[in-house]
Every structure is written in structure tokens, then in C-alpha cells.
């Protein structure tokens, strides 16, 4: 009696196994299949969803405009996702599954440097090209990997723009205090900011880290406050940016400028904090104010792209959207150039890619990272994200110094 349900279950599993598609599903029915393990749950859920939106927008555009031409034949595109729960190991396992079981042609990156790093190792081992738009730690690109390409400016440059901007003010900012999460990306961001400050005559008066799982950062903020810096920078992600910004107000920490690597650019920052989000700076890979004229084959300007994101997802385009779409575009142009879906040929085409898009230049150095596109600085002014640096792309002037808490 006891055995019957188990046997039935066994039969069911067997049947499911037999019914599952076997052999290469890739490019079946003239479709190019991309795979991406992405943070749909876990601590990076929000960023993961923005990544997915960026991918989906591209997919829908391409499929609606006749697909991608590869050597005289047109292909539609499809993207297969798995939820990596924002965990590095899970992301790698899922990448392996995408390659071995789902037989995807190419990989699009997960969200975050930690996951991108573990997935890059799988891409390398399986010799499947991956373009990622959300892992900016240079650690990923210093391993000699041949199959991983990143469309973003590296982590160390995230907060440079904010420092340049504060140094250009009158009187210029002189001291900097940095708090950073302990993950690889945030650490590189903090090191980059400190190095830039030291090389450019600014003094780093505080530079310390907290665990990336921290639920309370008040003691770090107390120590930071004691050093009284002109510029307060945080290298981290959205969740800790919110925690830090609330903590700074709770302890009444006054600085001339507050800057974050990730946070202000995502609408949640302003919606969660209300007026307390005002006058904060964020380093960004892209903003809808940038003025590039892209190659044909996709939306050619940042403004057209922003309109499309708004129509599809009813929110303002965020740089996570843009950099994710840019990763797809790198594949689109490289595949067209290669005229083939052969992984080696596409890899070589990616390595030689040099194209301007709505997002900026996509071109990789010998390590596979994009050193050719500058970062921008945004500031939340009266609840609205305004691009304030570099002056050439700016659609507003930086508000500096920040008024005291309670007057924002």
C-alpha cells in the first residue's frame, strides 16, 4: 500500500524526464537562445529585476524588428532565466545548467560582481561567450578570462566623478570619508575613490568597511562623524545605501556632499527616503541625459531608450536597465559582424567590437572590460534625478554644499 504512491511518483518523474527536450535546443526554429542566471530573489532582487527588464526590452525590440541577421539568415532571440537568489555559487550552478541542459548559445551576465565572477569561470571552462553589464569589479577581468566581456566602466571609477565635481567647486572640497560594504565590487569602488583622492590632493580622513549583511551601521557612522569630512562617500548597494543615509541623519552627520556608488539612481532611494534623499549624489554608468548617437539596429539615443523603458515598465530608465541592454547590444553587433553563431567567431568579434550605442561606446580592452565610456554623476534635486557631471552631458548644476538635515 505504502509503495503505490511512491511508484506513481517515480513513473511521473520518469515520464517528465522522457518528455523533456533532449539534444541541442539551441537555435531550434531559427532562434538564438541566451541564458542568464539573475537575482530575482535575495538581497539584490531590485537590481536583478532591472537587469531583466533591460534584457527583455532588447529581446522584444529585436523580435519586433525582424530579428538578427546572421549570414543571410534571420533569427529571433530568446532569453532563458533562472533565479540565482543573489548567491554566487547558485549563479554558477545555474549557468552550468543553462549551458549543459538548456544548450543556450550565449550567456548574458547575472546582476552583481560576485555572481558575475563565478559565472565567468563557468563561461571560461565551457568556452561560451558571456557579455555582462552588471559586474564592475576588475577582479573579474584580471584572471585572463577570454570569454567574459563587461560593457561597464570598472568599479574603481564609480565615485571618481563625484570627487572631481566636489573638487571643482569653490571653495573645493578637501577631505573625504568613505564607508564601504565588504563585497568585491564595493571594495574596489572604495579603493578607487581613495586612490583618486590621494592622487589629486584630497585627504582621505576615514575609510572603513562593514559586512555586506550588516543590519546596523550606526557605529561606523559615529566613527565617520568624528573625522568630520567635507565629502562622505559610500561604496555599496541599494539596501546599504538606504541604511547609511538614514543613519547619517539619525546622528546628524553634516557634510558638504554625500555620494553613493549605487542607490540614488534607483527610484526606490527617493521613494523610500522622501525629502531625506534630496541633494545626494550618485555615480552612474549612464543617465537619460547623456548625448550619444548610436548605431542603427536599436534605439539610437538615451532619450528614445528612456521613453521605451517608461512605456514598457512605467518607471524612469535606470542605468541598470541601460547597461543590461548594452550587454545584449554587444552580442547583437558582434554576431552580425561574425556572420555566424559559432562561439569562437562571436568571441573574436566581441574582442574587436567598437560601436557607439545609446549607452555610449562599447569597446573592450584586452582583459574584456570597457574602459572607453565615462561615468556620469547624478544628484537628486527636489525628488528628481538630475545629471550634473560631467558638465558636457549635464542637464542641471550641482547643488553644493548640501543644506543641513531638515532643510532639504
Amino acid at each position, binding site marked *: 500500500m505504502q509503495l503505490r504512491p511512491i511508484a506513481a511518483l517515480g513513473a511521473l518523474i520518469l515520464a517528465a524526464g522522457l518528455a523533456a527536450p533532449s539534444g541541442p535546443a539551441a537555435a531550434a526554429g531559427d532562434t538564438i537562445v541566451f541564458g542568464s542566471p539573475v537575482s530575482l530573489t535575495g538581497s539584490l532582487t531590485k537590481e536583478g529585476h532591472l537587469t531583466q527588464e533591460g534584457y527583455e526590452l532588447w529581446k522584444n525590440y529585436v523580435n519586433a524588428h525582424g530579428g538578427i541577421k546572421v549570414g543571410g539568415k534571420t533569427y529571433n532571440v530568446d532569453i532563458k532565466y533562472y533565479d540565482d537568489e543573489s548567491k554566487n555559487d547558485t549563479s554558477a550552478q545555474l549557468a552550468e545548467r543553462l549551458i549543459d541542459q538548456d544548450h543556450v548559445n550565449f550567456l548574458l551576465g547575472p546582476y552583481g560582481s560576485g555572481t558575475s565572477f563565478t559565472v565567468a569561470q563557468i563561461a571560461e571552462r565551457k568556452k561560451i561567450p558571456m557579455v555582462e553589464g552588471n559586474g564592475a569589479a576588475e577582479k573579474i577581468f584580471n584572471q585572463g578570462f577570454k570569454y567574459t566581456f563587461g560593457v561597464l566602466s570598472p568599479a574603481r571609477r564609480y565615485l571618481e566623478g563625484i570627487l572631481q565635481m566636489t573638487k571643482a567647486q569653490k571653495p573645493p572640497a578637501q577631505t573625504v570619508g568613505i564607508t564601504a560594504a565588504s563585497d568585491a565590487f564595493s571594495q574596489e569602488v572604495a579603493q578607487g575613490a581613495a586612490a583618486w583622492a590621494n592622487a589629486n590632493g584630497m585627504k582621505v580622513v576615514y575609510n572603513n568597511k562593514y559586512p555586506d*549583511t550588516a*543590519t546596523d551601521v550606526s557605529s561606523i557612522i*559615529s566613527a565617520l562623524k568624528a573625522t568630520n569630512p567635507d565629502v562622505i562617500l559610500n561604496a555599496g548597494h541599494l*539596501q546599504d545605501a538606504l541604511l547609511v543615509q538614514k543613519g547619517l541623519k539619525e546622528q546628524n552627520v553634516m557634510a558638504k556632499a554625500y555620494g553613493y556608488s549605487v542607490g540614488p539612481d534607483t527610484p526606490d532611494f527617493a521613494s523610500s527616503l522622501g525629502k531625506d534623499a534630496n541633494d545626494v549624489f550618485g555615480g552612474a554608468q549612464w543617465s537619460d541625459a547623456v548625448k550619444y548617437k548610436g548605431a542603427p539596429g536599436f534605439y539610437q539615443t538615451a532619450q528614445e531608450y528612456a521613453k521605451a523603458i517608461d512605456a514598457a515598465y512605467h518607471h524612469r530608465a535606470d542605468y541598470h536597465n541601460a547597461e543590461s541592454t548594452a550587454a545584449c547590444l554587444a552580442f547583437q553587433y558582434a554576431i552580425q559582424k561574425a556572420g555566424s553563431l559559432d562561439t569562437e567567431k562571436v568571441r573574436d568579434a566581441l574582442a574587436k567590437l567598437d560601436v557607439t550605442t545609446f549607452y555610449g561606446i562599447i569597446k573592450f580592452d584586452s582583459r574584456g572590460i570597457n574602459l572607453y565610456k565615462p561615468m556620469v554623476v547624478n544628484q537628486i534635486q527636489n525628488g528628481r534625478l538630475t545629471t550634473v557631471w560631467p558638465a558636457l552631458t549635464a542637464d542641471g548644476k550641482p547643488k553644493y554644499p548640501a543644506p543641513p538635515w531638515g532643510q532639504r
Partner: protein
Amino acid sequence: MHLFAQDLVNGILAGGILAVVALGFSLVWGIMNIINLAHGAFLMLGAYLTYQLFASFHVDPFLSLPISFVVLFALGYLIQTYLINWVARAPILTIFLLTFGLSLLMVNIALIVWTGDQRGVTTAYSGANFTIADVTVPWTKLFTLLAALAITGIMQLWLTRSKTGRAIRATSMDIGAAQLSGVRVAHIYAIVYGLGAGLAGVAGTLISLSYAVNPGMGDPFLIKAFVVCVLGGLGSVEGALIGGLVYGIVEAFATQLDFTIGTQHISGSGLQDAIALVVLLIVLIVRPTGIMGKATA
């Protein structure tokens, strides 16, 4: 000296919240011998409930404390009665997996209902603070601590004075004897699990004032609840309070620690978790039952 005092205050304020987080977890573990992996998810639901009441109806987070408690208590009571009781006699791993599954279910439902966006409960008085002798104290965190102390006090009184409270303690001491004395164990278990969930909900409400609300927010707190529980001693109200405060203070001071091993400069602030765990290890060596724990028969 000023930083020392500030850190002490920071630690106590953070520890008060951890005490409430750990309290419900500790009761369920100590009395029912269930390591409730859904505790973090209950906390998350409490936080979302607070957020939703605040965003839609402008209900002050402190006023939504009883609402979180009642709603989560009811949810916990139902889960225990209709799910966990079914597997009460199954091996411990089954219950472990069940609570884990429930946690995944709740997190994913939250993801569908509220999406992955980070939400915040930012009140008009959020961030308001006062300063005594160079030490800054944020009002919200002070009230949070007071609420935590009040909740702990009420729980302690209720467990020792009320009839149900005594039945709960009797059940935890000896199920057989309790049953013989007329205690309905299934009902008591449902109440305890409900209490655990309700207290998690209350903790979620308090946390929503300083921490971003998102579907995965319960995870780091679940881990801390585990440590605080073992540190303070299982199943005791005072244990959760003392454990929470010790953990909070240790973390606060760990942040300021700087030391050099050989040529390697090490900053304590990235190692808060590790340092807190070392303290746990030391406590377990010196007092294996936790700071306030009693040896069991």
C-alpha cells in the same frame, strides 16, 4: 571617551531590536524544539504590513505594532494547527524543511505582491535626534528600544503569571505531565508558534523604521536571532534580552577595533559578524547553556 559612550549607546539601541527578533525564535525553539526557519519571513511580513499601513493609510509605525502582532499571531496559529501539527511526530528534519518551505513561499508571495523594490517607512520624525554630553541618540531608535523592553517585560509577566503562560512552561518542561494535568498540547503549541510569529511581526515593524523593507530582508535577522538565542540561553525571555544586548554591544565595539598582525592591517568593522561569533564561542565554552540558560535534565 566620547566615541566609547556613543558606541555603547549604538550597541544598546541595536541590541534592543535584536532581542525582540530573537524572543519569538527562542520561545518556539526552547518550548517546541522547532528551529523555525520561517521566522525571518514572518518578520518580513510584519515589516510589509507596517509599510502598507503607513503608505496607504498613514498609520504611524508604532501604532501598527499591535496590528502586526495580531495578524502574524493568527497566521502562526493557523500554520501550526493546519500544517506543522500534521508532522509533529515526524523526524526533526521534516519540520525543518517544512518551515524552510514556508519561508520560501512567503518570500515569493511578497515578491509577487510588493515586487523586489526597496521600500522605506520614513516618518516625519524619522532621523530626529537629541544630544547629551556629545552622544547623539535618535528618537526612533530610543522608542524602539523602549518598545522592545516593554514587549519583553509583558512576555515575561504573561509567561509566569497567566494560566496559559504557565501551561506553556509546563509543556516545555514535561509534555506527558502537562497532558495528564489537562493541558491541550496541540492548542498550546499553536499558541506558542503564533507568539513566535507575532513577535517576529512586531520586530519587523520596529526594523522597518531603520532598515529597507524588501522580500529578502528577513535572512540576516534570522541568522542573528539564531546566534542571540544560543548566546542568551534557549527558551528564556531574559536570555533573548541579554543575548540581544550583548550581541549589539559587541558588534558596535567590534567596528572600532583595529589591529595589526605582522604587516597585515586588519579593521574590525568588516569582521563584526566574525567577532560576535567568537564571543558566542567563548560563552559556549564557559557556559554551554548560554548566559541565562539553565541546564536541562
